[in-house]
Every structure is written in C-alpha cells, then in structure tokens.
C-alpha cells in the first residue's frame, strides 16, 4: 500500500463503501429488471419433484379462482362456498387444466385445494395465499412486473354479445360499431380492445362483475358487451335470453392474447408448471380438454 498516501486510500474506501451502500439499496428497493431475470433463471433450475416444490401448504396444491366460478371455465353443480359451479368437479376447462397440471406435478385429486381469490386481490403485493391462480387472466408485459405468469393455457379471442333485434345486431364490420355504447368487465382486456380497436364515440362502461355487465346489457344500458369468446357462449346460452354473439374479433396484436396462471413474483413453481403445461400440450391433453369444454368457441363469425 505504500504507493498511495493514507488519506487517499481512506477516501477511496469511503467512496467504495458509499457505492456498495448505493448498490445494496438499489438492489433492496428492487428497481431494475435484473433481479427479475435472475428469479426467472432459478425457476428452471429448481427440481420439480413433488417434495421440492415451493408451496403455500406443504403436500397440497392450493389453487385460487374467483367466485362465482363461471362455465365453461368451471363446471359441475354449485357447491358451497362456490356459486354456479364447483372447481372441485374437475369439469370445465380451467378446472380440468388445473387438475391435469396437478397430476403432472404428482398431486392426487384430493391433494388439490381451491380457494376464492377475487381478481382484484390476485395481484395484491405481499405473500400470496395460493400457489397459482387460474381465472382467465390475460398475460400483459406490465402485469408480469408484479406477478409471474405461466405460459399460455388458452389463446383467447374477444367477442361481442348483443341483444337480438337491437340496431347494433345488424352490424357486420368493426367500423359499423363505432356509434354504439359498449361495456366490459373490469380487469379484462376486453376494455382495452374496445378503446384501441373499436374506438367507439361513446365512453364504454366498465363493470366490477360479470353480473353487473350482464344486467346492464339486459337493461339496454349498453348496446354490446365485449367478453372473451368462451364466456360469450355462456352469456348467450345461460345468462341473457334473446342475446347472440355478433362475432369474434380478429386478434389485434402480433402475438395472440393468452390466459396464464398467476404466481407470486419469483416463485420457483412457475418453471415446474410450465414444464407440465408443455407436456400437456405435446401429448395432446390441452387440445382434448379444449375440444371437450370449449368446442363451441371454435365457430363464431369474425368481425373485421
């Protein structure tokens, strides 16, 4: 050390210490994507045997979804605390996919526990009560900053539900839709679709729940309800008499919109679930479940 005068060494040390503190505090506040990347890196490395999984309750796969659980995503007969359907039934697309993933991870059907997770709390900061949440949640890059998404388990199109015999029911193109009032459910990408693709002249309405949106269309307070296509089939078949699907919309972006399961940020379980999903995709299970539960969603006219 004789090369440097003592005072200067001390000064350099002080600066280094300061830098270290700054770096630490930056790391601690979690700004910057580098920490995210490292978290993603570790997910694939972790072992996916049942005993090594990072679970909320050891030995149990805790899966969240909103209540009521609507067909065709969930099926079976209503069983408390669930309304309309029963996620435990294994019927309906999301229930079936969740059980298929659970099976891949080594869980028996009895080791899967369903809990009610309202959409708004699925992304609340802090520890999560579920291992993953499966609730028709669309992947978006901005959302992926707050939670981790699994790969796609369903590529989704938006569709338009209208009442038969109303003026909008004779529209055949997206351009013809502009003068009408639309509604969407909060948290869905349907609202974004209305705003950025239909660009209607009237401010669209946004509802907290599916019920409120459906009631509003029944009341003719809105002319059209934009929902994902499978939900549109349920709305027209079971929720609103005298309604019809006017059509589905072509996917707007380059990448198809898709639903992913939601995980706590940095949860190593994501990698294992993605492995399971990719197996289910390649062995044809996902296609089979889609055919079984969402077959109707294949054929709806496309609005251009």
């Amino acid at each position, binding site marked *: 050390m004789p090369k440097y005068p003592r005072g200067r060494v001390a000064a350099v040390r002080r600066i280094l210490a300061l830098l270290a503190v700054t770096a630490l505090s930056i790391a601690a506040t979690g700004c910057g994507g580098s920490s995210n990347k490292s978290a993603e890196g570790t997910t694939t490395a972790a072992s996916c045997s049942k005993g090594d999984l990072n679970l909320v309750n050891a030995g149990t796969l805790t899966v969240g979804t909103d209540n009521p659980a609507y067909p065709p995503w969930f099926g079976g007969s209503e069983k408390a605390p669930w309304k309309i359907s029963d996620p435990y039934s294994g019927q309906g697309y999301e229930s079936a996919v969740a059980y298929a993933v659970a099976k891949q991870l080594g869980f028996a059907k009895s080791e899967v526990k369903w809990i009610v997770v309202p959409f*708004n709390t699925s*992304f609340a*900061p802090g520890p999560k009560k579920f291992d993953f949440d499966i609730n028709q949640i669309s992947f978006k890059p901005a*959302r992926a900053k707050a939670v981790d998404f699994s790969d796609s388990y369903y590529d989704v199109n938006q569709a338009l539900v209208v009442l038969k015999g109303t003026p909008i029911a004779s529209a055949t193109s997206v351009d013809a839709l502009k003068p009408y009032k639309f509604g969407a459910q909060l*948290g869905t990408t349907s609202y974004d679709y209305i705003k950025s693709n239909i660009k209607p002249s009237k401010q669209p309405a*946004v509802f*907290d729940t599916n019920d409120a949106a459906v009631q509003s269309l029944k009341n*003719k*307070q809105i002319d059209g309800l934009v929902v994902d296509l499978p939900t549109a089939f349920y709305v027209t078949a079971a929720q609103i008499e005298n309604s019809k699907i006017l059509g589905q919309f072509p996917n707007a972006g380059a990448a198809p919109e898709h639903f992913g399961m939601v995980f706590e940020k940095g949860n190593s379980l994501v990698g294992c679930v993605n492995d399971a999903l990719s197996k289910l995709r390649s062995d044809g299970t996902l296609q089979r479940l889609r055919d079984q539960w969402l077959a109707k969603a294949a054929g709806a006219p496309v609005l251009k």
Partner: protein
Amino acid sequence: MTAGVEGRRAVVVALLSTVVFFTLLGVAITHAPGWPEVRRTFFDWGQFKDSFPEIADAFLLNVKMFCIAEAFILVFALLLAIVRSLPGPVFFPLRALGIAYADFFRGVPTILVIALLGFGAPALQLKHVPLSTTFWGIVALILVYTAYVSEVYRAGIESVHPSQDAAARSLGLTHFQSLRKVVLPQAVRRVIPPLLNDFIGLQKDTALVGFLGSVEAFKQSQIDAAATFNYTPFVAAAVLFVALTIPLARFTDWLVLRDRRRRQAVGA
C-alpha cells in the same frame, strides 16, 4: 415580551416535534420488510405520470355529478326539514313520512341505493325513463344525501330559540313568514360548517357511481391498476379527490371564523 419569547419557543417545539415524529414514521415505514414492494406497487412515479391524465379526465365526471347532485340536495333537504318541523297534529302524516324517509336513506348503504336504482329502475323498461347509469347514480346520491342534509337543516332550525319564532308570531307574521324571515336565516348560517362537511362526503361518494359502470376517477384508476397490476393509479385518484376537498375544508374553516368574528363584533 415574555409572551413573544414563549410564542417563539412554542413554534420551535412544535416544529421539532413535527420533524421528529414524521422522521420516525418515515423511517419505520421505509424500513418495513415489505417497503420495496409497496413502493413499487403504490408509488411508481412513471406509472403515476402515465395514468394521471386519464384519471384527471374521468375526475371531471365526479365534479359534474357532485355539482348537479348538490344543487338538488340543498333544495330538497330544506323542504324535507321544513316538512318535519311543521307544527300541529294535522301534519302528522307528512312528518311521519319525512321521518321514515330520513331513517331509510340514512340506514341503507349508499352503494346499495346506487346499485338498486342504477340496475333496477332501467330494468323496468318504461318509456321516457333514462337508461344512463350516471343519471341514476346522481339520483341515488340526491336521495341519500337529502336525508343527511335535511337532518343538518333541522338541527339548525331547532337551534333557533323558540322565543324568536314567538316574537315573530306576536308581530303578526304567519308560521311560514316567521320561518322564512326569522328562523331560516339564522338556522342556515349556523349549519354552514356541517353542510360543507356533507358536501365533502358527497364529493367522495361520487366514486361509488362507478359501480354502475360509469367511468369516473376511481373506476378509471381501477382500470389502470388492473391493466398493470400496479396500485399507483389509486394514489393518483386519491390525490385528485384530496385536491378538491382541501380547498373546501379550508373555506369552511374561514366561514366559521368569519361568523365568529362578526358575532363577537356585535357582542362588543
């Protein structure tokens, strides 16, 4: 002189204790284990700037609903208060109706009134009944706040000493003349602070109309929060509501102070 020194010392002590208090609070919050997460999800400046213009736009709807509702509330509530103060057994049915109205609409949560009217009334599919959710939201707010504000008016009317009314009547004024010329001018002046208090409540409750689908400031912030899984838009909406409320609160304080000064001046 000593008073001045003591005054200055009081200011210094107040300043110091304020600084210490908020420093401790700030340190406690920023050193909480979840703080980085909370800061990212609630206080993201980039997100704030992105969502603020849209929320501010939507906030205009809140202001509009508030202004329209308030005008009707002031009139209806006064009528209700007058009905409830009508003397004599003949008016008992009217008084009873007034009491039932106030009890009912103060008892039912505002959001329920909004939901029941907003989805219920248009469901009747009557001709000439508006379908607009905003319209029914405003009607619900008027119904609920008329009940509250009528109580405020009534408290003011009852605070005017009966001798005032008696004196007016002995001069030959009718009940309504006495009410109009003697009682109400005193009553209304006394209840201006609680009236403004209810205005502030009304301003905030306009956010409940979002339940019907109207995109007001809170709904817009929910849309933004759901799109990004970040709660910063809620903070942006809160900032807007507070920015509207604070001037009104300070204005209330000023009115109270002015009234007190005037009365003291008369007393001297």
